[in-house]
């Protein structure tokens, strides 16, 4: 059992590769290394912080229902707890890394990393304790209400997305992203759509581990969970394809992949408690939501470089509501829907203002937004002093590295 579970954990870890490739491919070549580095260090620092404080806050003894109060710097007697901690660490890293894509191409490395550590060490685990808390005794207050979030549409994805929303509001849009006269958004295409697609496929693969692993047991339900996950992803891509086709818009690779990711995020909450038909409906609507959400952010002049907020935030909210509405044992129950809605609102009210404060303080202290010169040169050069494509990139906007 433990062997199977660790294999699923490895799949969740592999999702970080997917995030890194997807986000890096959607950035311009001058920022490719920076995006990869942020994803890489999200895992490294996030894991350490989550081990030190996050795990205890989230899963420690939770008698009040609001916060875990034990297992800081944890050590265990029981073997299973090590596996559980490893699995939850991968989840925490996922929540933190969502912001990196949204804030890509104009965020300073140091400021971003401090923000990511605060997400992993405070914002994510405190909300998590309200829903999943009490592994070592007690129960979170939202769980007591009957809130269902099987693998984290809200706990992991929406919370990450609301932090990302706060981040892009503080850091502002990339230079020239919106026309200063008309206010219309300008497309900034990524430098490598092939690795975007590869990243999308890897995330999809990793999601099987993400959702199936959340059963915390190796029983027959794994097959249903994995199948629901797969169907929702397919439906998400189909939903966005239909939207683009019906509206006569070009069928973009990036949006299609985001559609399937939206489907995956949405099914995460209810993958164990929904029928296959409902999983397909959930994914299909998530795809539509991702497309509308992307358009809405553009209208509001919020620059989400990879579409992380529609995918993880808006689709996450929809998926959480769908988990209550399509609950197989008690479908179309308004009370369930109400509880789910409360959970979504609470997630926003907790994560967004706090992340806004965190990023605002970071901007005022160590600095979050890259200067114009840094954006001109590219963050690979200014933050890391190395280039992603030294031999092939002919558009150099900075002095040679040797100087």
């Amino acid at each position: 059992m433990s062997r199977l579970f660790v294999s699923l954990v490895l799949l969740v870890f592999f999702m970080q590769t997917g995030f890194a490739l997807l986000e890096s491919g959607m950035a311009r070549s001058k920022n490719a290394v920076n995006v990869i580095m942020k994803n890489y260090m999200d895992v490294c620092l996030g894991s350490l912080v989550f081990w030190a404080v996050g795990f205890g806050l989230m899963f420690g003894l939770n008698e009040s229902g609001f916060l875990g109060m034990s297992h800081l710097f944890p050590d265990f007697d029981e073997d299973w707890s090590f596996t559980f901690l490893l699995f939850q660490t991968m989840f925490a890293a996922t929540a933190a890394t969502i912001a990196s894509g949204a804030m890509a191409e104009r965020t300073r490395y140091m400021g971003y990393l401090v923000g990511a550590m605060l997400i992993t060490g405070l914002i994510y685990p405190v909300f998590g304790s309200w829903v999943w808390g009490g592994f070592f005794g007690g129960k979170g207050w939202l769980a007591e209400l009957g809130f269902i979030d099987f693998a984290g549409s809200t706990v992991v994805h929406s919370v990450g997305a609301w932090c990302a929303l706060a981040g892009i509001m503080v850091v502002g849009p990339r230079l020239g992203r919106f026309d200063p006269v008309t206010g219309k958004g300008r497309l900034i295409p990524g430098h490598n759509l092939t690795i975007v697609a590869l990243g999308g496929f890897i995330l999809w693969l990793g999601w099987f581990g993400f959702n199936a692993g959340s059963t915390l047991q190796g029983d027959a339900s794994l097959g249903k969970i994995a199948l629901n996950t797969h169907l929702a992803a397919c439906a998400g891509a189909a939903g966005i394809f239909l939207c683009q086709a019906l509206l006569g818009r070009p069928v973009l690779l990036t949006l299609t992949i985001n559609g399937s990711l939206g489907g995956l995020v949405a099914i995460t909450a209810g993958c164990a408690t929904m029928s296959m038909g409902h999983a397909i409906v959930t994914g299909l609507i998530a795809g539509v939501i991702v497309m509308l959400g992307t358009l809405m952010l553009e209208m509001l002049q919020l620059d989400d470089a990879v579409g992380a907020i529609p995918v993880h935030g808006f689709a996450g909210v929809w998926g959480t509501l769908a988990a209550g509405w399509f609950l197989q044992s008690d479908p179309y129950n308004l009370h369930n829907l109400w509880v789910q809605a409360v959970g979504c609102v609470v997630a926003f009210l907790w994560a967004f203002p706090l992340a806004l404060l965190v990023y605002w303080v970071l901007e005022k202290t160590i600095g979050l937004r890259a200067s114009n010169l840094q954006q001109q040169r590219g963050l690979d050069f200014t933050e890391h002093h190395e280039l992603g494509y030294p031999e092939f990139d002919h558009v150099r906007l900075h002095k040679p590295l040797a100087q």
Partner: protein
Amino acid sequence: MEDRIRQRRALFTVLQQWLDEATVLEALQIFEEQFQGRPTIAVHDYLTRIAPLYQDKVDAKTLRRELMQVLVRTSQQLAPDPLPQLQQLRARQQAEQRIEFNLQPSAEQLALHQLISSMLQKVPLPQRKQLHTHIARQLKTRFRNGSYDQLAQYMLAENPVYLARFDDAALRDFLSLIYVAACEVLGPVAADQWLGAGIAAFRASHGAAAQAINRYL
């Protein structure tokens, strides 16, 4: 004549409440050169024009209200005419300008001038006009105390002599500012290609001398 002196004294009375003397004189100089003799309503345009000088200390609405109140005061209630200080400032600037025009741009500054000039020529005319407008707007907010005028003059005259008084950091900032304006007018992708192609072409055509621009990139 009487109106002109009165407006100048009123402005001096109001502005010195929030701004230091050098900034007040810079603001008054703009009034003298571009706004004097125009009707009182031109005060609105004037306050917009000098906004970069005061906007971090006081908002335009307060300043305008204060100015309207001071304009109707009696002569005894106004500060003395700042004309002597303005004359001293003008004399000092003229002396500095004579010194500045004796300055010759360095080889690196000439290289930067050639780079900027060749890049601007590659922008289609309507967009070049927009680019100039954006650059002028950025210059007003970033470069103060006369340096704005020098760079604005440079953009108009395309004369590298105007670059001679600036150090490397200021010129790097200036090139970055042109890039920002290009991002706004041309879009970020086209701006990257425009600057990248400009630098590549300059390096290809100037051989070893092209290294001179590295300090500004």
